[in-house]
C-alpha cells in the first residue's frame, strides 16, 4: 500500500508546484492515518456494548455501564468522521479507502469476538456473537482482498488518474 502511494506520489509530485504537491502528499498520509485509526476505535466501540447494554440508560433511567458512552462515541466517530474524512483526504483511490473499510469492519468484528472469547465472559449466549463476527469478518476480508488486488492493479491507473485530475 505504502509502495503504491510512493510511486503515485513520485509520478505526481514531479509535475506539480512543490508546495501543492507537498500538501497533497500530506493529505494522503493524513487520510491513511485516519482510515487506520477507525480500527481501534471500532474495536473499542463494539467491545464494550457486546458486554451488555441496557435498553435504556442515562438521564432518568439507571446509569449506563462504564465505558459505554466512550464506546458509542468511538463507533460514531469511526463511521461518520474518520471514514468519510479519511476517504476524502486520500483522494480518488479505491484501494486505500477499501483498506480503511476493511480495517473498520475488522475492528468491529475483533471487538465483539474479544469481548466474548478473549476477555472474561459476561454471558454464555454465543449465537448472535458468531453471526456478528461472521458477517463483519467476511466483509473485512473481502474489502482487504479487494484493496490488495486494486493496489497492485491500479498502480498505473492511479498515476494516470493523478495526471488527469491534478494538471492545471
Amino acid at each position, binding site marked *: 500500500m505504502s509502495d503504491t502511494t510512493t510511486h503515485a506520489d513520485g509520478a505526481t509530485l514531479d509535475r506539480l508546484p512543490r508546495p501543492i504537491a507537498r500538501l497533497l502528499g500530506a493529505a494522503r498520509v493524513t487520510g491513511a492515518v485516519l*482510515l487506520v485509526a477507525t480500527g*481501534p476505535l471500532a474495536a473499542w466501540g463494539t*467491545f464494550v456494548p457486546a*458486554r451488555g447494554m441496557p435498553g435504556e440508560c442515562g438521564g432518568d433511567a439507571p446509569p449506563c455501564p462504564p465505558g459505554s458512552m466512550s464506546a458509542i462515541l468511538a463507533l460514531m466517530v469511526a463511521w461518520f468522521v474518520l471514514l468519510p474524512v479519511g476517504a476524502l483526504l486520500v483522494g480518488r483511490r479505491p484501494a486505500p479507502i477499501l483498506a480503511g473499510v476493511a*480495517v473498520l469492519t475488522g*475492528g468491529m468484528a475483533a471487538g465483539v469476538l474479544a469481548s466474548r472469547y*478473549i476477555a*472474561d*465472559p459476561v454471558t454464555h449466549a454465543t449465537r448472535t456473537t458468531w453471526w456478528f463476527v461472521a458477517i463483519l469478518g467476511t466483509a473485512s476480508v473481502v474489502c482487504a482482498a479487494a484493496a490488495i488486488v486494486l493496489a497492485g492493479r491500479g498502480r498505473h491507473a492511479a498515476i494516470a488518474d493523478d495526471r488527469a485530475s491534478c494538471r492545471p
Partner: protein
Amino acid sequence: MLTTGAVSISATVAFASGWAHDQPRTIAFALADEPFGERSFLHPDGARRVVDGLLDALRDREGVTSLFLEPSAASMRVIGGDRLRRSLRTTVGGGLETFEFRTPSHLAVRHPDPVPVAAVRRLDLAAAVAATRRAWERTPGRRVPTLLLELRDGRIAGWKVEVFGDETTEVLLDPSGDEVDRLGAGTPGTAGRPGAAIASGTAVGASGDDHASGTAVGVGHGSAG
C-alpha cells in the same frame, strides 16, 4: 495500512480485555457462574484474605460479634472496648464500608459478647468453605451460598451454612468445619433472607431462642469446650 490496522486493533483489544477484567458486570457473572471460583469470598484463599482484611481494619480492643460471608461480599460486626458497635462490609469489587452505630450497646436490646480477634484468625476457613460447597452441590436450583459464623457467650459456636435455591439447605458446622447437623431443607420459612440471617444471627447469639442456633450452640459447645 492493513498491517498497521491489524496491529492497532490487536493492541486495543488487549487493552480492552484487561479493562474488562475488573468491571462489575464481569465480576458479577463470574460469581454467579462459579460461586466458589477464584474471585469469590467463598474460595478458601479468598475467604482467608477477606476475613484477615476485615480483622486488620479493626481498632484496638474491638471484638467480633458477627461474621457473614457470601460469594460477592463479606460483613462483620464488632463491639469496641467503649461498647460502641461497628459494622464493616467489603465486596469483591473492592472497598470497605464501615458503619458506626451511634448508640452505645448498653442502650440497645441484646448483644452477644464479642469473640477475640485472635480466635477468628485461627478459624479453619477452608474447611467451612468446603462444607458450604458440599451443601451447595446438593441443593436443587442452587443459587447463592452463604456462610455465617455462630457466636455464643464470647466463644465461637460453629458455622451455619445456608444455600438458597428452589429449596433452602441449612447445614450446621462445628468450629473446625465438620458437619454437625442438616436442617431446613425444603423449609424456606426458617431461612429468610441473607440480610435477615445477619440480623437474627447477631440477636440469636445472645438469646439462643432460635431452634437452629440452639442446636448449633449446644453441639458447638460440646466440641469447642
